[in-house]
């Protein structure tokens, strides 16, 4: 990840604001320390640039925050990518032997004496090791501190999301320029990753970035790139994403391969756009997830097989609204959501619109921009 040069966001301030929110949360909830393993949580509390990987690993303590000392400690054997407020003495080694990792953690000042420690997961093995070798503190959920801190974005975080949005838009244009009958989803995915990487964000948030929809028979949302050449006249979903300084943005547009949209495709696209506008308009502070379900149904739509919305920040975040979840999720000023409208029609195909939306003041502000199907 390049470009983290303070030209747009003040990264020192961004990190300080995040740390302040975390330590205030520890104070508020009476938690003495955090042991965190989730990629977004580690980035949030430490600000460190760590190696991007695909997939999710079981819990391991990669970052530790101690309320008493107000220090953040990080599993990193070297200082590269580690911000200056985390000193050499705050780093602990990469170990293959969990007992060595536990021994290093036991040396973190203030951790052994902690009475309540928040974690973002556990494994039966780490739970045993922590209790035996690190601290006999009660292990509780870190989410009241971490999820609460991450939910509302600071202006610097929104700037990062705007930069990520710009990179994602470039990913969309790379795919749109290449889209023609005969090209494969796999080739479009390659072009997407190439463009996004060359703009400084080599590890995209998802490789689910495009799929062609069939003009005959049942239409399903697909996630894995296929080798089949895209057919003339097929509706093709282009759904790029990008990470900037860890912040994720994404959007989606649908295009017809090889020709201008016919009437049936244009009708589907305009229904998709209408529902999208209704969803975005419902993303208002004071509303809840139920309002998104309500406007979706009011537009005449049935259950959606993909989420209507979910949080965005340092990666995908709660709340999840859709798939039966999130009716009670409160929408607040300062949240950022990925919002999407997915519509299908047998004999025509499928149409997806997705946007990254900031809840600011009274209304929703769309951070991602791109022309709709016309």
């Amino acid at each position, binding site marked *: 990840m390049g470009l983290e040069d303070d030209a747009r966001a003040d990264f020192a301030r961004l990190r300080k604001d995040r740390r302040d929110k975390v330590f205030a949360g520890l104070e508020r909830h009476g938690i003495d320390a955090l042991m965190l393993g989730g990629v977004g949580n580690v980035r949030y509390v430490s600000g460190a640039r760590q190696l991007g990987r695909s997939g999710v690993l079981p819990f391991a303590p990669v970052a530790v925050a101690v309320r008493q000392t107000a220090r953040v400690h990080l599993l990193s054997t070297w200082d590269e990518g580690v911000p200056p407020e985390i000193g*050499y003495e705050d780093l602990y080694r990469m170990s293959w032997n969990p007992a060595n990792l536990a021994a290093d953690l036991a040396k973190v000042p203030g951790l052994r004496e902690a009475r309540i420690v928040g974690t973002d997961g556990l494994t039966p093995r780490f739970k045993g090791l922590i209790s035996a070798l690190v601290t006999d503190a009660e292990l509780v959920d870190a989410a009241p501190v971490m999820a609460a801190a991450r939910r509302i974005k600071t202006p610097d975080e929104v700037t990062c999301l705007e930069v990520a949005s710009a990179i994602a838009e470039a990913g969309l244009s790379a795919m749109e320029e290449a889209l023609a009958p005969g090209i494969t989803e796999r080739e479009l995915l390659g072009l997407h990753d190439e463009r996004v990487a060359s703009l400084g964000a080599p590890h995209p948030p998802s490789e689910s970035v495009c799929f062609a929809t069939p003009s005959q028979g049942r239409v399903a949302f697909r996630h894995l790139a296929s080798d089949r050449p895209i057919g003339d006249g097929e509706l093709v979903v282009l759904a790029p994403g990008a990470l900037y300084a860890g912040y994720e943005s994404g959007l989606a547009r649908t295009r017809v391969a090889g020709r201008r949209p016919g009437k049936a495709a244009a009708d589907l696209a305009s229904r998709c756009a209408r529902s999208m506008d209704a969803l975005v308009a419902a993303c208002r502070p004071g509303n809840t997830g139920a309002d998104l379900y309500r406007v979706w149904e009011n537009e005449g739509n049935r259950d959606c097989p993909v989420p209507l919305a979910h949080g965005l920040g340092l990666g995908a975040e709660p709340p999840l609204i859709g798939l039966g979840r999130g009716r009670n999720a409160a929408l607040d000023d300062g949240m950022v959501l990925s919002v999407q409208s997915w519509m299908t029609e047998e004999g025509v195909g499928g149409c997806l619109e997705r946007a990254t939306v900031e809840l600011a003041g009274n209304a929703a502000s769309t951070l991602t921009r791109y022309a709709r199907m016309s």
Partner: protein
Amino acid sequence: MPDITRMRRERFARLQEQLDAQGVDGLVLLGSSSVAYATGAGEPGQDGDRAALFRTVAVVVKGDSAPHLYTMYDDGVPDDLPDDHVHGPLFPDLDDGIELFAAAIADHFPPGARIGIDHQTHAVLRALPDVEWTDAADVVSPAKLLKTPDEVACIRNAQLLNELAMVDARELLRPGTRQIDLSAVFLRRVFELGASANAIDPIWQVMAPTLELGPWTLHGDIAYPTVTTDRFLRDGDIIWVDAGITWQGYASDYGRTWITGRAAVPNAKQQKQFHRWRGVVDAALDILKPGVSARELGKAAIEANDGVRPWIDHFYLAHGIGVDSAEMPLIGTDLGDHFDERLIMQPGMVAVFEPVIWDEGASGYRSEDIVAVTDTGWVKLSGSTYEPFGVSS
């Protein structure tokens, strides 16, 4: 090419054997690689928190004929999984709807069952306070340790795709190229060639000539691997490359040393480093066969490097590879000599040898050779070109 259906069947049988051997009634798996191992389910490559929120879940019940899969990625469901074993997603990271997760567990296991789990979310711990969880690693790790011939074929193919894409990346290597430009070319090409997913942000680390000129480290040894940036590469820069993709769930591991320049030729010292690296790997391979211990392999490597341990303090002489990019057998880690003495090579183990040769003042050489242990010795799974250092063994 591998028979993927047979591979899934044989893996599932290994999990069942281990459930029996460990006295565990079943598994609940939340980690990406464990789910892939147990079910063969496909999912798009995704960054950590996205992969977590939208994670697939596998449930393996002792005595059952197939795993249960809970996923929102319908197009990744294996064809041969029975319909009544395929379910919608569970979202175990959220309290909202966690009663559905609890109900699923209750469907599969009677009260008091001993269930292995690889990752516990707090929502799961709250919803199932009475379950006595054990660590799934006790079942999954021994099952994964020995690869079937189909698994070995998957690793070999993943590695081939990775190596072919690196040909294009290396052609771009010249002064002014940025690290991210190499990533861009590599990622595009590897997907064109057929990769299922990229596994890590590709690494193109510029090695400083001395340890002091490199990043500060806790152990005083080499800092590696550091994360790719938009750094410009300069003529003569020594680049330690490391990248991994997956194919059918199996990881590749590409490691080479490159020299920046349109027609870069290693100098005499660099050639010597390469030959020493080759000598270290060959010393280990010369004795590698079933029955040899990890400790003996480590000793042979150290001896070939005149008594100096030829690997980085926080790593290993060799690591296994499979659905995880680094898994057992781990040879030469901080698990210690006693562990290595008891770690005995067996047919079906796969090892990635990645010793490092370092000359203070002249940087060093690092590459990776992947071999599978056979009944009588080993077979190489990675390619045998090491440009610009030439071809060897």
